[in-house]
Structure formats: structure tokens, C-alpha cells
């Protein structure tokens, strides 16, 4: 069962990556990132169970805290974006272009 939980964790992580690179909607990209985090969390939990050590649980908790912080910031940015550009498109952001 743990083995399969790990398989699932890989699958969720990969789906998250796919979401990040395929979608242009900021919300979806954001949620895809959350999905990646959750995939990782599942991995932590599964390994914690496997090794009977609760460090994995603590790590998962920390990840959730980080995710919450990230959510707060990301959503603020999304609000700003929508306010200024009226768009939810990641392609609006190309400030990195030289």
C-alpha cells in the first residue's frame, strides 16, 4: 500500500508539473503548484509511515504552512494582475525578457 501511495505521489507531482507548463490561466497554474506540493506531502507521509518516523509529518506540516503563505501572496498578485491588466494570462508577465 505504501508503495502505491508513493506511485500516487509521483503521479500527482507529475500532473502538477504538467499543469504548470500546459496551462496559461494563473489560477490553474497556482493550483497546479499546490498539487505538486500535495504530491510531495503524500510522499513525506508515506515515507514517514514506512520508516516509522514522524519527521515526515512535521515536514508535511511545514510544507502546508509554506503553502498557506504562498497562497496568500499568490492570490494578492493575482488580484493585482487582474486589476491592472484585466487578464488572468501568465503570458502577460514577461518582465524577465531582456
Amino acid at each position, binding site marked *: 500500500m505504501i508503495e502505491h501511495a508513493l506511485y500516487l505521489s509521483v503521479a500527482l507531482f507529475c500532473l502538477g508539473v*504538467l499543469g504548470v507548463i500546459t496551462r496559461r*490561466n494563473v489560477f490553474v497554474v497556482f493550483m497546479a503548484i499546490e498539487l505538486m506540493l500535495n504530491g510531495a506531502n503524500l510522499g513525506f507521509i508515506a515515507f514517514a509511515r514506512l520508516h516509522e518516523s514522524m519527521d515526515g509529518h512535521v515536514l508535511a506540516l511545514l510544507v502546508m504552512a509554506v503553502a498557506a503563505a504562498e497562497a496568500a501572496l499568490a492570490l494578492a498578485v493575482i*488580484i493585482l494582475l487582474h486589476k491592472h491588466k484585466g487578464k*488572468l494570462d501568465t503570458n502577460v508577465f514577461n518582465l524577465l525578457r531582456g
Partner: protein
Amino acid sequence: MSQPLLFYALSLLAIVGAVGLLMFKHPMNAAMSFAVTLIALAGLYGLLSATLVFAIQLIVYAGAIMSLILFIIMFLNIQPDDLPDESGYWYYLAGGAAALTPLALLLLYGINSLSVTSTPEAPPGFGTIKEVGVVLFTDWLLPFEIVSILLLVALVGAVVLAGKREGGND
């Protein structure tokens, strides 16, 4: 007896929710689909004897974060015109899948090489709030405090970013 069955059902739900996240055009639908995944994951954590994490997943993730996202989506009152043009979606999907395959294969290879055959019996009290709390506040105290600072910074940042008045940012 019912545990494996429950496990596979929840796994299926998680996968379906994730795929739904990728496929739905409107973010509201995608968010609802993602909530399914999160809840299913909470169930899985429970099955893996992580009771505290199960609770927090439900409260923080499926509860707070998801509702925040939903709130914002609704708050922005998204019209179909606001949605980006995602015409090349399928090409990206195919290309991304192809590029990810080696990574996935490598990870699977790694998992297989662990050769986990049976699930060991969880020790008593494993994953309960007390046990985890002891670990958290002894071994992980410093990271915990740092994360608290991170949360504070994010809080301030979010207020600064989203709280700007129109025209006041230049």
C-alpha cells in the same frame, strides 16, 4: 479488508481531481476539482496513520486555502473574455508528458528499488497530535519558528500587494 479498497478509491479520486484541474477551462471548475483531490488526499493521510496531518489537511488546505481561492475567483467575477487563449494546450500537454516520462520512470524505478513488500504495523500513538507535537517542538523548533516568520512576512506582503489603491502604485 476495506482499507485497500478505500485506499484505491481515494487514489482514483485524487487522480481524477488532478486531471480535472488540468482539463477544466474555467478556474472555478478547476478549483472544485482540485478540492476533490485535496479531500481525497486527506483521506489517504488518514489511511497512512497520519491523523494530525489528516486533520490539518482538511482544515488548512481543503478548508482555508481552497476557500480563499474560491473566494478570490468569485470576487474577481471572471468572464469568459478574461480567460487566456489556450489554443496550443494539447501540444504542450503531449510535449510535457514526453519530457516528464523519463523523470517519472526514474522515480518509479527508485520506488521499486526500495522493494517495499509489506506494510509494517504502526506503533501506538503514531501520528497523533501529541507525538507529532513533541517532535515538532523538540527536534524541529527552529524551522518552526522560521516558518512563523515566513508566515508573518507573507501576511504583510499580501496586505501591501493587494491593498494598494488604484493609481497609488506609481
